């Protein structure tokens, strides 16, 4: 019973964001910028993509209604589509930090308190992704969102599309921007409230901030119950403007959630390996592993239910979504389609199956990386067909943007972690968490 090591552990820990780490992150970010520039240069000169796909475009007759079919393709769209994909992915990871804290408050969970500062640090990145999304929408909205096209709701226009016109009460630029701003304001604003309670609790103690946090946490959950779905429609589903699926909101939430859990777990493991969070024991890791495992299965459940029902009923207006990703655009999305399922289901499911696996940091890292990379593919595969179609691919641009976002996100989380004691020392459930032992 290796878990029974209950010697007194110190709860006083200060995270140090070393200049060495800063230097490495800055270099990583710089490499990302360089890669994007190289990639952009190649794209502007007609290279760097999967141009072979052009030859097979004839096979993609099914996607005649795809966005790419309606207007001239610009090479810059691929840059913006990458910015968009990464922004929604990292928005999700950040906001899941808040989601995790809030449902832990609501459920009166005690075990998770010791590493609470990690999910608490994640939402600080939201303004960055929010502003980038606004920028992307303003600059490149017309190239990415079919419904923003000029005259699309005008029966006299050549661009007129009756189905999209029918959606214009929801899909119109002013309302879209209002919604986008509301999401980020509410998510980030409520996080600021909870964060300030948490920091004050550290200094003042007592249960007052705990009680308040429950109230505001529940308020966030109510907000998120609605906005997580509508945001998924706005950010992702509206790209394939004709297409619809009632599951899509919860499917995106499931994807965000498990990716956020994997980032949290990976952060806890990494900090522990660097000598921080010594109060985190194998039982905490085991439970984090269970969360990753369980919500891997949940994502797969939602993914599969959506796929199966559309496949089974085979209604053309629904099945087109998978057709495009399976055989459309010369079949370039077929690989990522399967990579998505392998990395997001088979790898974490098999790797995290046993008890000991969830208690072994190296195994946890394998599973978490698989989930994190896998869900990037999930979003990539949902964004790219409708935005760049056969021009999609994996080149310097993709890797560059990932690197830039990842380093910036790590920077943001690290900065937040320095702002408070690494363990919430006055949380009323802390003693439970320090003695967490599930053998």
């Amino acid at each position, binding site marked *: 019973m290796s878990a029974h090591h*209950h010697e007194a552990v110190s709860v006083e820990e200060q995270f140090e964001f070393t200049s060495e780490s800063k230097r490495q992150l800055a270099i990583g970010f710089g490499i990302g910028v360089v890669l994007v520039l190289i990639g952009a240069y190649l794209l502007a000169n007609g290279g760097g993509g999967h141009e072979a796909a052009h030859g097979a475009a004839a096979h993609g007759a099914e996607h005649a209604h795809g966005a790419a079919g309606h207007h001239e393709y610009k090479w810059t769209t691929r840059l913006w589509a990458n910015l968009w994909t990464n922004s929604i992915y990292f928005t999700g990871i950040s906001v899941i930090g808040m989601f995790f804290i809030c449902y832990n408050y*609501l*459920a*009166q969970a*005690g075990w998770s308190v010791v590493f609470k500062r990690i999910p608490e640090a994640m939402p600080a990145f939201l303004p960055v992704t929010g502003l980038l999304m606004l920028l992307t929408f303003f600059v490149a909205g017309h190239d990415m969102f079919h419904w923003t096209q000029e005259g699309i709701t005008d029966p006299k226009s050549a661009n007129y599309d*009756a*189905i999209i016109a*029918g*959606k214009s009460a*929801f899909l119109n630029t002013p309302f879209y921007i209002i919604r986008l701003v509301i999401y980020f304001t509410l998510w980030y604003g409520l996080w600021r409230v909870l964060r300030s309670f948490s920091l004050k609790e550290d200094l003042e103690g007592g*249960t007052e901030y*705990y009680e308040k946090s429950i109230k505001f946490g529940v308020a966030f959950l*109510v907000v998120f*119950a*609605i906005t997580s*779905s509508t945001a998924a*429609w706005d950010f992702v589903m509206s790209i394939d403007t*004709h297409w*619809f*699926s*009632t*599951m*899509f*909101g*919860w499917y995106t939430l499931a994807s965000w959630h498990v990716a956020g859990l994997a980032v949290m777990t990976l952060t806890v493991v990494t900090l522990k390996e660097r000598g921080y969070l010594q109060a985190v024991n194998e039982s905490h890791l085991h439970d984090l592993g*269970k969360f990753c495992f369980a919500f891997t*299965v949940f994502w797969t*459940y*939602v993914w599969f*239910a*959506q796929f*199966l*029902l*559309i496949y*089974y*009923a085979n*209604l053309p*207006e629904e099945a087109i979504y998978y057709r495009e990703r399976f055989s459309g655009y010369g079949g370039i999305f077929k690989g990522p389609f399967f990579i998505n399922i392998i990395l997001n289901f088979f790898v974490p499911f098999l790797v995290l199956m046993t008890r000991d696996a969830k208690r072994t940091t190296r195994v946890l890292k394998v599973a978490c990386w698989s989930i994190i990379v896998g869900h990037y593919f999930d979003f990539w595969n949902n964004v790219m067909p409708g935005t760049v179609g056969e021009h999609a691919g994996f080149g310097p641009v993709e890797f560059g943007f990932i690197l830039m976002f990842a380093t910036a996100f790590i920077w943001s989380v690290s900065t937040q972690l320095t702002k408070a004691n690494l363990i919430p020392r006055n949380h*009323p*459930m802390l*003693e*439970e968490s*320090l*003695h967490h*032992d*599930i053998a």
Partner: protein
Amino acid sequence: MHITSPVRTPLVTGGKTYADVTEDICRHVEGKPTKEWKVAFTISLLVLLYGAACVAWTWWEGLGVWGLNKTVGWAWDITNFVWWVGIGHAGTLISAVLLLFRQKWRTSINRAAEAMTIFAVLCAASFIVMHMGRPWLAYWALPLPNTFGSLWVNFNSPLVWDVFAISTYFSVSCLFWFVGLVPDLATIRDRAKNKVSKYIYGALSLGWNGSAKAWARYEYISLILAGLSTPLVLSVHTIVSMDFATSVIPGWHTTIFPPYFVAGAIFSGFAMVQTLMLVTRVVYKLEDYITLEHIESMNKIITLTGSIVGVAYLTEFFIAWYSGVEYETYAFVNRATGPYWWAYWAMMTCNVISPQLFWSRSIRRSVKWTFFISIIVNIGMWFERFVIIVTSLHRDYIPSSWAMFSPTMFDIGDYIFSFGFFFTCFFLFSKYLPVINMAEVKAIVKSSSEKLPKKVSGVAKGERVSAPTFNKDAQ
């Protein structure tokens, strides 16, 4: 060493010792049936007899005695089936999912909830068999090697998946329930005063000896069964939802159905647990074990799942409009404003609005309100299935095929049958088996009591223990 934070509310009140727990719960199994019990049992038996007569006539005469017509080919039968299956979700959710989440408050409600699950699943199965019309051919639903030529079940049909999902779920739920009963059955065996009960409870307790090894195995198998039941409990209503969602009927074919049905099932299941536990708690004087904290926690889950269902209703409605598919849009507008508007608004009021009352702390801690809303929720969840099934069917693609459904006395009588069956089973359970898991409640006495007695083991009361008649020769 486990630590319980002082901000946690107690789950056992009245300063109970281990001996008190045994005594308070065994009392009802060991005593003579009370007058109230006899009256209630007789009533449910009479209801069962009436219902059984209706079912017998349904089988004898054929399904023509129901109000079905060529447009509405499924109505109360499948509504009742889905309703009961849904109710049957809470037991496993409480025992399995809450065990995995280490929720201590599950210990005093899991036993009765699991029993309820088993009876509810049986009720649900009865409607499947009923609507087959020829129940003696029910085994045709199983992929058995047969001599009828190439006759084989259609594996592509979600109705066949249902057969597998529900029978597996039923088996695992029974197993889970029985394994949890073993230590308690052994306690009753050891206290038994006559040979018959000693024999019966002795046989059922499988030679349980309370050794450390037996407990270790008990905990181990509980975890394994919990791990197995969790995906199972999700799969059952997922597949029930696919009975509808794999079709192309507007209002049925929608991708959110699987998780939305599961949430709705948990919602109705918890409401039924509340209804039953609130009565049991008063009749058996178990207020120290099923406290207001338990009731409040269950109400929170009812609010959560009710809100999830509410989000799903709104999503469906929104996407029906957003899709621009005329049939879809019509199906939903017709639900809310067509001839079945009353069913739709009954569903909305009962399922989405009424659980929001629980945002008020005083309402969710009020026994009367809780009881009232638990009934309301169950009514609402019946209407939800009725709305989905009947309103989607009654407007066929050709207006000349449009029809309404009106139930006959056999639709109603066959539904009454399931109530008679359910309550007969539940009353038998509450008399002959311990309604609360004594062993597991004892496991939380130390950590979660309001005030601990000086000696937590307590002293066994009564002559059962001081002068056992039969359990001496066991040594």
